[in-house]
């Protein structure tokens, strides 16, 4: 038996050779930094070995009001996005599904998908221009309705809403694809039957389309929860400015600033390990919940 396996291994040498670059890559660029997270329990030394300090950084972290603010911002922004962004792609897919003119449908789809492919730098640039307090498009509209101009980018009261709307602008179109695909799989005979029974368009939407989407909606929702602690690093990083940092600084931007700008490597790693552990717990639990209820997991 053992000989058999050895023989198999020997005859599969080409396969191991083909796998080797990937395994080498992951070992160096993924596994090494993964173990590098032990820095969270050390003090960083430029010369010589790092010194183990146990939970020191975590103690400082959890007694620091700055970190608590960052944690709070992360949770608030994530919750706002789940509540106000999540339903939009579903509604959009329902609307697009009602379009029967092929050309118009194609036109709408190709336009609303477009922002997904723009970089966050470009998106930030577009929004900074459009929210400009002097002559930005949004304020042109506000003035038209006799409302005073607002400087959204520096307003603590508005900036989180800007993030939510920006997320809608960027991703609602693209995220609707998954629901549209699910709608296409609904059997047309259901609609035929409903029409014979005299159901209106709205009733068909309410009683056929939406219920058929439930499992897709659940799956997407659960998978999104797995990334709850991210809150959108690239977006915040590019929309950040000194006026609003206190309300939109999130875990990832905090780690970047404390670690790479201020050079407190170990302390920042502690913050990022905290985020990572919660992230892993969320991903694993959402994976198993999703598997259990919908049969589909993260992998």
């Amino acid at each position: 038996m053992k000989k058999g396996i050895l023989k198999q291994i020997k005859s599969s040498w080409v396969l191991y050779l083909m796998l080797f670059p990937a395994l080498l890559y992951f070992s160096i660029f993924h596994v090494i930094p993964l173990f590098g997270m032990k820095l969270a329990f050390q003090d960083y030394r430029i010369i010589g070995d790092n010194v183990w300090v146990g939970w020191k950084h975590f103690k400082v972290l959890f007694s620091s009001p700055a970190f608590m603010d960052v944690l709070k911002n992360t949770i608030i922004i994530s919750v706002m996005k789940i509540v106000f962004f999540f339903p939009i792609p579903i509604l959009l897919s329902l609307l697009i599904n009602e379009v029967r003119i092929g050309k118009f449908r194609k036109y709408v789809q190709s336009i609303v998908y477009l922002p997904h492919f723009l970089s966050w730098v470009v998106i930030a640039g577009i929004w900074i221009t459009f929210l400009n307090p002097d002559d930005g498009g949004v304020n042109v509209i506000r003035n038209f309705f006799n409302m005073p101009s607002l400087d959204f980018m520096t307003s603590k009261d508005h900036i989180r809403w800007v993030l939510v709307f920006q997320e809608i602008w960027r991703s609602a179109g693209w995220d609707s694809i998954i629901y549209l695909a699910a709608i296409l799989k609904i059997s047309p005979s259901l609609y035929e039957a409903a029409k014979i029974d005299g159901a209106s368009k709205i009733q068909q939407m309410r009683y056929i389309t939406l219920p058929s989407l439930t499992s897709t909606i659940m799956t997407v929702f659960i998978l999104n929860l797995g990334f709850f602690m991210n809150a959108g690093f690239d977006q915040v990083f590019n929309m950040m400015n000194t006026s609003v940092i206190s309300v939109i600084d999130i875990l990832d931007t905090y780690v970047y600033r404390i670690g790479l700008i201020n050079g407190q490597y170990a302390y920042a790693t502690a913050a990022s390990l905290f985020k990572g552990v919660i992230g892993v717990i969320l991903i694993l639990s959402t994976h198993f919940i999703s598997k259990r209820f919908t049969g589909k997991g993260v992998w």
Partner: protein
Amino acid sequence: MNKLKKLSVSTIIIYSILFLISLTVLIPLLHLLAMSLSDPLKVHELSGLGIIPEGFSLINYKILLSNPLIIKSIFNTLFITIVGTALNLLLTAMTAYVLARTKFPGRKLVMIFLIVIMVFEPGLIPEYLLVKDLGLLDTYASLILYKTINIFYLFIMMRFFEDVPESILEAARMDGAGHFRIFTKIMLPLSKPALATMGLFYGVYHWNEYFRATIYLTDTDKWPLQLVLRQFVVERDNTSMLGAQNFLSYEQIAALDFASLQAGTIIISIVPLLLLYPLILKYYAKGALEGGVKD
């Protein structure tokens, strides 16, 4: 009669809403285009919602495309995108072939390894320190070697490969072709749409990447376009925006509008995406669904 009328009203409302939604995407982009093409002396007349240039001038593009920093950064981005995507595709496809279409002792172990590292992401600081320790700071390699194999994409690629009929591979095996030959001569040519999809996934990522460049590249000569753009548009740093413009008089420089120059830079950075957009729509969406929720 009544019913017909009611139906058409709801249809009109739906079409109008979708039309308005598409305008919210189009107008900001067209506005930036109009700004960049306006005469710098007249651009202040352009409304915040205007999409038709006030006057017409290519001066902004002349300035931007004569700026050595921008030209250099375009070539940097092209280099990183092309070399990066080629390496991404080669490694992802080769690994996907082995894992999706062959049997060998240890396959299960490799799959578990991949899932484990997919769940456990290293943090920013250890990644930075590794790149630093390897002496890769300020090299293109630091960007090319970031997520060279994206595990999500690897799994999507495996699904594509699983769709290739076994009979074709079996026939090749009968002819005595080895795994490497089957991979290069049969699997890859049969998977052109899959490779196009993956190439677009990785290519768009490289073209839009700015964050790794922010932390790994201090040498502005190596900066990708997105980072130069970020400097102009997000950090509002105008100093490097004007290159060596010998062809401009002082009056002309004084008359320049920086917002228009910023708009021009944004447009330059999205033109390649727009050119590829028909391909993106064709392949990308299909691939995304493949990797997303599969019913």
